[in-house]
């Protein structure tokens, strides 16, 4: 999801891509949460992880 997720049409398209059809009322209800989430997710790009391999095994031993 891009930074312009505050746009209702973008939310609609995002939901459709994920396989859901939600009403505009339902989308309006989640808009603040999605916006906060988008900010947190974009901040991940600032983490020093360029050379870090993602976790694929959750148990260490």
């Amino acid at each position, binding site marked *: 999801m891009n930074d312009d997720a505050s746009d209702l049409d973008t939310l609609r398209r995002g939901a459709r891509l*994920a396989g859901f059809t939600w009403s505009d009322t339902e989308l309006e209800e*989640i808009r603040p949460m999605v916006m906060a989430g*988008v900010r947190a997710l974009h901040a*991940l790009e600032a983490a*020093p992880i360029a050379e870090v391999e993602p976790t694929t095994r959750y*148990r260490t031993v």
Partner: protein
Amino acid sequence: MTELARMIATKAVSPVEVVRVHLDRIAGLHRDLRSYITVCDEAALAAARAAEAELMAGRGVGPLHGVPYALKDLYDTAGIRTTGGSRILGDRVPEADATVTRRLAQAGAILLGKLNMVEFAYGPEGLNPHYGHARNPWDRAVHRMAGGSSSGSGVAVAAGLAPGSLGSDTGGSIRIPSSLCGITGLKPTYGRVSRAGVLPLAWSMDHVGPMTRSAADCALMLRAMAGYDAADASTSVLPVPDYGAVLTGDLKGLRVGLLRGFFLDGAAPEVRATVETAARVLASAGAVVDEVNLEHMPHVGGASLAIVGSEALAYHAERLRTRAGDFDPDVARRLRAGAYVTGVQYVRGQQVRALVREEVDRALARRDVLLAPSTPIAAPTIDTRQVELGDGLSDVRTALVRFNRPFNLSGHPSCSVPCGFTAAGLPLGMQLVGRPFDEATVLRAADGWQRLTDFHMRHPVLG
């Protein structure tokens, strides 16, 4: 539980009496506290009578023989409904027990009932509009949050409606209610305890564990539950130690890293001062305390959101398409927000997870445990939306999970223990975090703390 187990095994008290006392207390307080969804009164009494008969016949007994306990209502129980705190599963009756349910029964424990929780374990406040909001027993005047998602588990143990319970923890759901309700809760290492037959929230972050009155009780329950399970591929083949045997009370030389920065700076002043005092008490008992700063913690929130949001939506997608109106509206909104996490962001979350795990491992390379507050605040009132933390204003949900999620991402074991009270008389909790599969040291430290203090012995005054 340890004391009850001893008294039952030596026939100082009958399991029937013990079960009946708890059922009477549940009957008297349930309407007010809302800690149970289902009470198994007849089955519990029948099991207690059978346990008593076995004792009188001199048959060998398990370590929890005749000791009652209760389960968060997401553990499958054969023939007993398991709702996940949801109306959608309100009539769901599993045919088989979860692995841990079966193991506790084999150890002789008696199930009192199924405990209230946040719907599908998705929320830290402990609210549930379907079965009633569990009430924190420490404030009779004002309805305060029990903490979640294992809200009923926290309330039942704190209020004496069960001597022990099981919770589950994806972002703090054992440690948050333990902290807010003034009890002891252990999130074991990822892979230490089987999740088979436990409704998932996010497979890669879910941990199951005990919530009790003391570290000794957690040790007793963990030993009975832990170990490899063919039904859960994430479980380890490492042997299960006798956790009770390491509870010596000796803290001399225990290396404790007090987590500053993200943790202590983020706590409300009263919480920060209490945990700093606890560190001094541990040092006075011979522990070697130093300070640590984990610099990658600010990325934990985004990583958790990417992973939990995606996994939770994947699990509930079909229900959300067909039964959306039957969800708690708040839970439905959180699930929907997961649709906006991209595949790349999910992988970024897993990269951060590797980074965080490595950083916690590094901090524990020269230390036995890390020490931090369990929650940055005491129990807020149920209508609280924002709280003031040490480093600014935060929404209450983010505040409650803040100190817990790092160790769900990393998988390290963490035990929340009571560490003091606010001026208003509300309990505060601190967590002790250990190396993977070293629950023994975590429990030894927690037990050592509890031999120095009496916070875990205090109980709310109820009618």
